Every structure is written in structure tokens, then in C-alpha cells.
């Protein structure tokens, strides 16, 4: 529930110049920055600690390969977390800007330039990033300190290790910079605000113009096609040599980047499809329209969760499929000790990539809340003409469900595909004792049910958490608010 609490910063003792920090959404952006920076710091420390441990080990000390592998893994994991955090932050800032349109228009009216307005938003992003990254740095150090103390006691004699590594500044500064950049990207809309919007009582446009950047969509499509082709090729190559996984990895990278870039094309039809599941009642229809009101916002909100779920599922399915492949190659039996090692590795990786899903979830909760705050007037109107409080609750819960179901289902499907391809392209050609002549060949994707159940349960929890604050705010809207002139 800490995510929800942080969405509404109640009373930060900030000077009058920093009052914008209390704007809805800023708290969540700080939380996102803090989460990703703490995650980065902990991973850097863990990598260094494992490295120190390996160095001290008399048997593997000199071969640095394992340390390099661990380091590369943590770089990848931090990269993914920063990427998701950047999407969430950019989305949050662009949503905050949408709510500030009137204010920005007023400043434009009395002579402020659009550029200076945008620079101010970027500056706010820098401050949010700095605050969040610092909190994350401290939290990360505390976690690392506790972890090292625990490991020292468990493992006994361990070489001297200091937490104060210069490298922990890399993820911290990375978070500051990505938050800054994300605020800049998210503030693009400032440039479109005209001074006239301060005085015009214009009707809200119900749908953003999603079209308009065909070049980007074509690029995304090309990436997607190339990626899928490489994925298929990787599986085929994998039947001959383990190098297939390199081809498939490239394909995975390209295709997923394509999906992320084309999210605004891919996600809305899926949202519409999920919307059909909820029937034709007035609340269901209103919820469906709300989920699609800002297709770009919803798509980016969903794609972060898609990323997290895809990664978690991918590791689960990959490791499970690896076990199946090895079992088949070995002629039906797999060393149980080896299976346990694989399972623990899978569990650790799932937790680590799960952090990205948590970051995406914070963004989702926050955006749904801002979405409700920004349409108080509409809620007042609906209440006036006969939407009951129970229907308000239902509508907002369905709205949250729309996005979580769409994102989780997409992530599960993609994760199963990617995970299976990873295992297949790596081990399709593996030969194991006692039947060295035969390779494993093609196997069906193996889906372990525990992670899937955990993911679905987490989605249910996320939906309830995401709906809680907006529902509380929305049921407090009095019908009279529809009549307020502004």
C-alpha cells in the first residue's frame, strides 16, 4: 500500500517555490525514481560482493568469467528497470501537463514563452529525479548493508568489502538523467498549448490524435518484422548449434522494441477486445470508453506492465523449457540437484525482473488516480443525471481491470513465446549422456504453473490497489460539482 500512500504527498515541508512537488503525480514520480535507483544500487553492490567472493575462492579466483557474466546480467537488469521507469515518468509528466493546460495557457497569455514553460517542466523533472535518486541511494545502501551483514554471517569468513563503491553512483546518476529526459519528453505537449485556451470555455476533446507519426509506426513495424524473422531463424539455427540463442536474442530485442514503439497501435485494439468481455451495461461502456479516452496514455501505462510480466514469464518458461529439453536429450532423467539449481536461478531472476513490473504498477496506480482527478466535473455530471456511487465504484474498477487484464494477458503470451524461443534456440542441438547421438530437437513450451498463478494473483492485487484511491476520490465527488462554472 506504500505505493498508494506515496501517490498523495500530504505535507512535504517545502518552501513556497517547491509547492509544485505536491502536485498529484510528483510523489509517484519520486517513488519511481527511488525504486529504480535503490534497485540499481543494490544490484551493483551485490555484483561487487559476488565478485569479491569469487576472487577470494581458491578454485575459481583467477577466472573472471563468472564475475563478468554476473556484472553483465546486472547491467541488463538495471537497464530494463531504468527503461520502464523512464516510460512511466514520461507518461506521468505528460499527464500532469494535460491537467495543467489552463495554468500554462494563462502564463502564455501574460507573456511567458512555451519554451521557458517547457524548460521549467524539465527542471522539475531534474529535481524529482535528484530527490528520488538520493532516497533510492540511501535505501539501496541500507538494504545492501543488511544483505552483506546477513551474507557474512551465513558464509562465515569473507574478504573485506566496502559498500562505498564509486560505481553505485552510476545507477543513481542514471536515474537522475533518465528522469530529467523523461520529463522533457513528457512535456512535449506544453508547446501545443495556446494562450487562448486560458479564456476559451472549450469542450474537452475526448480522444487524443493518435495518428500523426507514421514514420515511427513504419519503423516499429519494420523492427517487429525483422525481430520475428530473427526469432524464427534463431529457433532453426538452434537445432544445429547453441549459437541460435544469439540470433534469437537479437530478434527478441528488435521485436520487443518494435512492440513498445508501436504500443499505441497494438494496445488499443486489445483494450477494446477486453472491453467486450465486460458486457454492454452503462458502467461497462463508460469504463471501456474511459480506458480508451487517451489511447497513448493507456498504451504506455499498459506497456510498462507488459514488459515486467513478459520478463518474469520469459524466465519462468525458459528455465522450465530448458529442463524439458535436457530431460529429453538425457533420455528421460534429469539430475535433481541440477534441477534445483535451475529453479533457484529462475526464482532469483523472476524477482529481479519483477522490480520493473512494480515500477510499472506504481505508474499505473498513479495515472488512474490523476485520470479521475482530471475529470471531476464529468463525474459530477454523471452523478447528477443518475450514476449511483456503487456504479461509480464499478466503473472505476472495470477501468483498472481493462488495463491490467490487457497488459497481463499480453505479457503472458509474449513471455511464453520469448521464453520458449530462448530455451529452444539455446538447447535444440544439445546432446546429453547416455544418448549422445540424438539431439533434443523441438519441444513444446513448458509453462510452470506457480509463476503464472503468482502473476495472475499479483494482477488481481494490482487492480484492487490501482482502483482504491481513484474510487475513494471519485465517490467523494458531489453531483453539484457538475454545475461549477470552472
Amino acid at each position, binding site marked *: 500500500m506504500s505505493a498508494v500512500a506515496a501517490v498523495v504527498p500530504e505535507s512535504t515541508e517545502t518552501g513556497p517555490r517547491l509547492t509544485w512537488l505536491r502536485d498529484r503525480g510528483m510523489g509517484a514520480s519520486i517513488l519511481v525514481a527511488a525504486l529504480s535507483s535503490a534497485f540499481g544500487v543494490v544490484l551493483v553492490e551485490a555484483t561487487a560482493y559476488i565478485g569479491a567472493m569469487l576472487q577470494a575462492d581458491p578454485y575459481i579466483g583467477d577466472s573472471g568469467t563468472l564475475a563478468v557474466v554476473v556484472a553483465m546480467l546486472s547491467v541488463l537488469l538495471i537497464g530494463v528497470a531504468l527503461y520502464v521507469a523512464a516510460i512511466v515518468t514520461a507518461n506521468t509528466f505528460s499527464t500532469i501537463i494535460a491537467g495543467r493546460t489552463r495554468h500554462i495557457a494563462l502564463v502564455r497569455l501574460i507573456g511567458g514563452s512555451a519554451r521557458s514553460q517547457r524548460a521549467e517542466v524539465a527542471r522539475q523533472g531534474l529535481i524529482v529525479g535528484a530527490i528520488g535518486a538520493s532516497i533510492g541511494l540511501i535505501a539501496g545502501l541500507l538494504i545492501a548493508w543488511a544483505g552483506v551483514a546477513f551474507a557474512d554471517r551465513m558464509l562465515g569468513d569473507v574478504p573485506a568489502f566496502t559498500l562505498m563503491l564509486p560505481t553505485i553512483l552510476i545507477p543513481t546518476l542514471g536515474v537522475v538523467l533518465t528522469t530529467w529526459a523523461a520529463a522533457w519528453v513528457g512535456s512535449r505537449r506544453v508547446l501545443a498549448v495556446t494562450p487562448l485556451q486560458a479564456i476559451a470555455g472549450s*469542450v474537452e476533446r475526448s480522444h487524443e490524435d493518435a495518428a500523426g507519426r507514421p514514420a515511427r509506426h513504419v519503423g516499429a513495424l519494420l523492427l517487429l518484422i525483422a525481430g520475428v524473422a530473427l526469432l524464427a531463424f534463431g529457433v532453426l539455427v538452434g537445432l544445429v548449434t547453441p549459437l541460435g540463442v544469439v540470433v534469437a536474442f537479437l530478434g527478441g530485442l528488435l521485436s520487443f522494441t518494435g512492440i513498445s514503439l508501436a504500443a499505441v497501435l497494438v494496445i488499443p485494439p486489445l483494450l477494446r477486445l477486453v472491453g467486450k468481455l465486460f458486457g454492454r451495461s452503462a458502467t461497462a*461502456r*463508460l469504463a471501456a470508453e474511459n480506458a480508451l479516452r487517451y489511447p497513448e496514455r493507456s498504451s504506455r501505462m499498459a506497456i510498462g506492465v507488459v514488459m515486467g510480466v513478459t520478463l518474469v514469464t520469459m524466465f519462468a518458461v525458459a528455465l522450465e523449457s530448458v529442463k524439458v529439453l535436457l530431460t529429453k536429450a538425457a533420455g528421460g532423467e534429469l539430475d535433481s540437484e541440477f534441477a534445483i539449481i535451475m529453479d533457484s536461478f529462475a526464482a532469483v531472476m523472476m524477482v529481479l525482473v519483477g522490480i520493473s513490473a512494480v515500477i510499472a504498477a506504481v505508474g499505473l496506480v498513479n495515472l488512474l488516480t490523476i485520470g479521475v482527478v482530471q475529470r471531476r466535473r464529468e463525474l459530477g455530471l454523471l452523478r447528477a443525471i*443518475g450514476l449511483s456511487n*456503487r456504479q461509480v465504484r464499478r466503473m472505476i474498477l472495470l477501468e483498472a481491470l481493462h488495463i491490467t487484464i490487457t497488459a497481463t494477458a499480453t505479457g503472458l503470451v509474449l513471455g511464453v513465446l520469448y521464453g520458449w524461443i530462448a530455451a529452444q534456440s539455446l538447447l535444440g542441438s544439445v546432446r546429453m549422456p547416455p544418448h549422445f547421438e540424438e539431439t533434443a530437437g523441438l519441444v513444446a513450451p513448458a509453462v510452470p504453473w506457480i509463476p503464472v498463478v503468482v502473476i495472475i494473483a499479483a494482477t488481481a492485487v494490482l487492480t484492487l490497489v490501482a482502483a482504491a484511491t481513484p474510487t475513494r476520490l471519485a465517490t467523494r465527488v458531489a453531483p453539484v460539482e457538475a454545475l461549477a462554472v470552472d
Partner: protein
Amino acid sequence: MEITTTDLGLAARVQHLTKSYGAGESAVTALDDISVGIRRGQFTAIMGPSGSGKSTLMHIMAGLDAPTEGRAWIGDTEITGLGDLDLTILRRRRVGFIFQSFNLVPTLDAIGNILLPFELDGRRPSAIERARINGLVETLGLGARLRHRPHELSGGQQQRVAIARALATAPDLVFADEPTGNLDSASGREVLQLLSTASREHGQSIAMVTHDAIAASHADRVLYLGDGRIVADHPRQSAEQIAAYMLAAEVSA
């Protein structure tokens, strides 16, 4: 037996209604012991300067707000003391609303907005209601616009969709709050004519809050509010008469 609102030929009424905000020294009285009825089948304008309490009166009569003291009825249903759910259902079925602006749900097209009160009630319009809606759509000239969303409609068209929605359920009473406040004079006149036609030809009871003398001149009856009380109650008047009365009231105040 108590005499009912219907017996009195009224669509809605309030009795000894008081509404005050705050407490003690800083208390503000918006309505001061008002008793008044809105006659059935009539187009009534409620006039008064800003702060006269006309909006507060309308909010309470329409079941949007609760009074500090006194009672209010819509038809024969006493609405003071009703819970939130009962009030919501009452508004859905028996009251129509036309606001100054932001009348329509931006994500729904025109017909979706018109049918919203029925859908919130979890039902489809009956054959009679459908015929009524079709008639309204035709009278209001919305036939070609039904699939348009609010932002694709002009201000006057949006107001006509709001009128269609307000009249679609054949409510006991339609409340209009400055319905022409955001319109140019031609669209405004059109909206007022549509409202007076609805009351004259179909017996629709309408209460309109306004401070525009021209708007009030379309009504069958004009109630004047000042400082939370009814200060005058006139049958149909010309815009000049209304403006003169308002001006005199302002000057003497």
C-alpha cells in the same frame, strides 16, 4: 391527510426551506425560509442577482443538495431525508438536467448521451419512450448528428442534445441552469424556444435559473429571488419589464 403536491397542481415544491453555510459569526444564509411551488406544465424562470440563492434553491429542489431546514418534494415524493442512492435513482428517473456547459459525457456520442439515463437504469427505452426520443431527435434537428461526439458539435448542438436527454425520460421536472449562458444569441433564442415549446405543447414542467432578462421573457412565470427570499412572483413578462424590475431591485438594494 396531508395535501399533496399533485393536489396543488405542482410538479415540485419546497416548504420553509433554509440553507446556511458555516456556523456562528461567519454563517452565511443562502436561503431564508422559502416556500414555493413549481406549477405543473409551466415554464418557470427563477431570476435574481448573483448570490441571491437561486442556484442553491435549484440544487435542493433537484435533489443535488440537502437543506439545513425545511422540506422539499418532487411530485408527491418528499426528497428531504432520502438517502444518496434513492436520490440518485430519483434524479435518474424523474428529473432532467440542462446545465450551462459541460452537459455531455465527452466519450459518448450524441445518442449515447441521450440514452444514458435509461442505460444507467439498466434498461432499454420502451416502445413509447423510443417514439418519444425519435420525436425529440427530429424536433431538435439532431438526426444527422447522433453519431457525433460532443467535441464535434457546436455549442448550440450540444445544448440541444442536452435538452433531448433531459426530456427523453418524460421527467416530472426539468431543471435548466443558465442553459443559454454559453451560447450566441441566435442559438440561445433557439434553445429557449425549444424549452417553451416542450412545456406548451407537451406539458413539460420546466424550472430555469437565469439572470438574463431575455431568457426569462420566454417563461410563463418569473420568480425573483433576493437575499435568499422570494421577492416577487410575476406571470409572463417582457424582457424590458424584467430588466426594469431587476435594475430597480439592484438600485434600491
